[in-house]
């Protein structure tokens, strides 16, 4: 039976084009749907979506993708990733809660809900402290706070923000690690690729979007097990799990929902897009 797959996007990146061509090569009936220009009814009118067996949700905007997924799932259409996985993995605070509950080692993290409380926590755990927005990625708006002056500056900047999420502080211990981290791509029950991401000169962050260099990584069995446990903790699906090699062992610090895999594909030579399409076919056939 031919699978009918829709790829929902809002910005066509290398990854979405690769998924599209891989699906076509696999004999899948695939369509690209721009979420920006294709609204949905919230009532019981499946419309064009009745023809789809499965949807790959690839929106770059977390909230757009999240609510698009909610509506499609309410129509009974399987979406990769699911609403639950998208909700959790698109939010660092919820992700940390799930990782901790599942027993996945993760950096010690604190939440504060006022400027004063944030400063008090930073002073009590000691500098440096890493402050991250709870939604967003590519290393944007992530700050390493080295002292009270840095903390005051950050708090002042956040006070001016009209984004309510900027007033929830997600504070993490700074982990002493090599100048790299691990990005593992999980598809269903498999770690299909893993890379080391090296921090670029003059930056402590390792995000490829910030110019970090990548190379193929070979994980130990224990590391793979931990990566899969992290992916399962947030609900499973197609995910990018980021981990640091701390002195005490692997620490998972992020799980990404609409994972970018251009760097991993090029560094490893693996056909990650085809693995994702194969997984979508399985989900669509259930």
């Amino acid at each position: 039976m031919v699978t009918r797959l829709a790829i929902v996007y809002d910005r066509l990146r290398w990854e979405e084009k690769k998924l599209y061509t891989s699906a076509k090569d696999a004999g899948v009936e695939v369509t690209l749907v721009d979420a920006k220009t294709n609204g949905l009814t919230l009532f019981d009118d499946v419309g064009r979506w009745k023809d789809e067996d499965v949807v790959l949700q690839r929106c770059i905007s977390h909230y757009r993708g999240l609510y698009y997924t909610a509506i499609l799932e309410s129509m009974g259409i399987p979406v990769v990733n699911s609403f639950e996985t998208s909700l959790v993995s698109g939010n660092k605070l919820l992700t940390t809660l799930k990782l901790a509950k599942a027993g996945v080692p993760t950096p010690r993290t604190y939440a504060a809900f006022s400027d004063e409380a944030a400063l008090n926590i930073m002073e009590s755990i000691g500098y440096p402290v890493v402050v991250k927005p709870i939604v967003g990625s590519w290393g944007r708006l992530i700050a390493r706070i080295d002292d009270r002056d840095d903390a005051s500056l950050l708090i002042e900047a956040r006070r001016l923000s009209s984004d309510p999420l900027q007033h929830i502080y997600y504070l993490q211990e700074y982990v002493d690690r090599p100048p790299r981290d691990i990005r593992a791509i999980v598809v269903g029950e498999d770690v299909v690729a893993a890379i080391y991401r090296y921090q670029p000169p003059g930056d402590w962050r390792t995000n490829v979007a910030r110019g970090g260099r990548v190379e193929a990584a070979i994980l130990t069995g224990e590391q793979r097990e931990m990566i899969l446990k992290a992916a399962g903790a947030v609900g499973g699906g197609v995910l990018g799990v980021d981990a640091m090699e701390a002195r005490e062992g692997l620490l998972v610090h992020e799980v990404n929902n609409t994972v970018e895999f251009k760097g991993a594909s090029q560094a490893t030579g693996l056909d990650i897009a085809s693995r994702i399409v194969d997984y979508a076919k399985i989900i669509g056939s259930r």
Partner: protein
Amino acid sequence: MPGEIIACPDCGTEYEVVSIDPEAGEVELKPAEEVGEDWGE
């Protein structure tokens, strides 16, 4: 490909491809969305 983002080589402004007419050799563009705070992987 419609949906792709291209950047102006002079000023870096990003545009989204709306449609391509190979016969006429024309590409319709519109300004790309500005980066949102919730954008990412």
